């Protein structure tokens, strides 16, 4: 074993030990008969999910709301991401876009948008958009704009420039070169990134509501806060089913498209 590897292992061991030592972890309380009993009771109540018609209708509405949040958030992000990507990319076909003064701040903006998680955005947006699905949708849109903006910018930069060049040498203005050469060439890639982020956003939308951003999550935190375990169980099942369905669909879509 080399000394570097030994040092690395030692460092990791030290980090883990320091972590456990410095956190006031309440294992005794977690493993106590009392909390085990509480956990058991929660699980037992959850195992019989609520199934009255009125509740199921609300559950269906919340599921639809979750899906709508993810879809609207992704579409908004794709539009904003495309606009920012034009500014952030080094595509010479575009007037402003090729310039440093637009590119650097736009990249910084995209980085900030991306590095703050959806849930933190949702908590921040509650202040201006209020409780409800609108805050969640905007939160998804902001984070996804950061992600898609960067991916789009890279796609535009890496697009083959033969067609764009052909139009440019004939004197076609830059905006139209993008619309008729670069965009059609990159569109499939942009679509596939967008669909991939939509899949991610469905998962994120399901839990965003926990901080008040609407959808299944908001319903979950409401019922869990009141210890309605039967309802909680049903909502959890809806969430897991939704995520599993999305996984299945995306696996299937990838297989179909891969052929």
């Amino acid at each position, binding site marked *: 074993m080399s000394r570097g590897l030994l040092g690395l292992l030692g460092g990791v061991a030290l980090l883990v030990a320091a972590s456990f030592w410095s956190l006031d972890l309440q294992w005794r309380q*977690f493993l106590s008969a009392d909390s085990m009993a509480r956990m058991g009771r929660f699980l037992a109540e959850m195992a019989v999910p609520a199934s009255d018609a009125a509740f199921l209708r609300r559950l269906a509405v919340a599921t639809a709301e979750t899906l709508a949040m993810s879809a609207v958030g992704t579409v908004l992000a794709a539009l904003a991401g495309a606009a920012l990507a034009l500014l952030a990319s080094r595509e010479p076909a575009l007037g402003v876009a090729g310039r440093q003064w637009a590119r650097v701040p736009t990249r910084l903006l995209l980085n900030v948008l991306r590095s703050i*998680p959806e849930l933190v955005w949702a*908590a*921040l947006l509650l202040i*201006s958009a209020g409780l409800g699905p*609108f805050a969640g949708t905007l939160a998804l849109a902001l984070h996804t704009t950061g992600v898609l903006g960067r991916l789009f910018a890279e796609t535009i930069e890496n697009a083959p420039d033969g067609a764009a060049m052909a139009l440019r040498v004939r004197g076609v203005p830059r905006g139209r070169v993008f619309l008729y050469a670069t965009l059609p060439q990159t569109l499939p890639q942009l679509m596939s990134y967008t669909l991939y982020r939509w899949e991610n956003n469905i998962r994120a939308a399901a839990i965003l509501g926990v901080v008040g951003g609407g959808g299944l999550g908001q319903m979950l935190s409401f019922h869990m806060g009141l210890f309605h375990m039967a309802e909680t169980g049903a909502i959890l099942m809806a969430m897991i089913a939704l995520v599993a369905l999305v996984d299945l669909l995306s696996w299937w879509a990838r297989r179909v498209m891969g052929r």
Partner: protein
Amino acid sequence: MNSRSTAAVSGQAGLSPALRDPAWTGRVFWALAALLLMAPALVAVEFKPWVLVEPDNLRITARFVGDFFPPAMSADFLKLVAVEIWRTVAIATAGMALALLLALPLTLLSCSAISVSSLSGRMHPLALALRQAVRWLLIVLRSVPELIWALVFVRVVGLGPTAGVLAIALTYAGMLGKVYGEILESGDPAPTTALLRNGSGRLQAFFYGLMPTNGAELTSYTVYRWECAIRSSTVLGFVGAGGLGQQMDTSMKMFNGGEVATMLLAFVLLVALADRVSSRLRKALG
């Protein structure tokens, strides 16, 4: 794009030839169709952007965002933020350590690369059933988001880092177990089967057959997941599981823009640092 394309396209007849779009009917149709499809979704999410610019909301937002500058920089507060950053990292690290402890035995149980019975024909039905059962357990563990686990554990053990550590441990055990299994099964099976055929035990085959060939990839994935755990342990704080997120949540509820700004900055730096460390480590692993 010159004057030869004089054929007037209906609806665009007034435009100069250079502005005519041969595919405009299709574009208009798809734009309208997309709007029609989006309309119910916009209603469902209560899409009312004008809420953002209502005078009351605007005033509160402006005050909150105005508070961002300057960020809170008092020595006491910075010390608090430093402690919370460490706790965030510690929650992620402790959670990962537990996840690893859980995932390793589950991987050994579910991995078909060290199956003895499948050396000669098909896997024994009992072994197959056990492996499938463990795989289902892994699916259940990772299909519940860590935030939901944290909500449940906060109800059981109370507010604080214990819930965060447990939540990360369970979800990440599911993810690690699944990906470890995939890595081990996609590698070259020859050394392992050679060991097993010559009478080595499963554990020996694992340590001397699978680990030398797949060890770097396994470690690299684990480091990547640790980086993800740091991000998610911050988010877990918002439901009361300790760390930077919990502090951020408190400051947001008190509309303290300056503190929020400092913590957002700290969070962005932390994530960037973890990203740098993790990619350096992974590069070193090859």
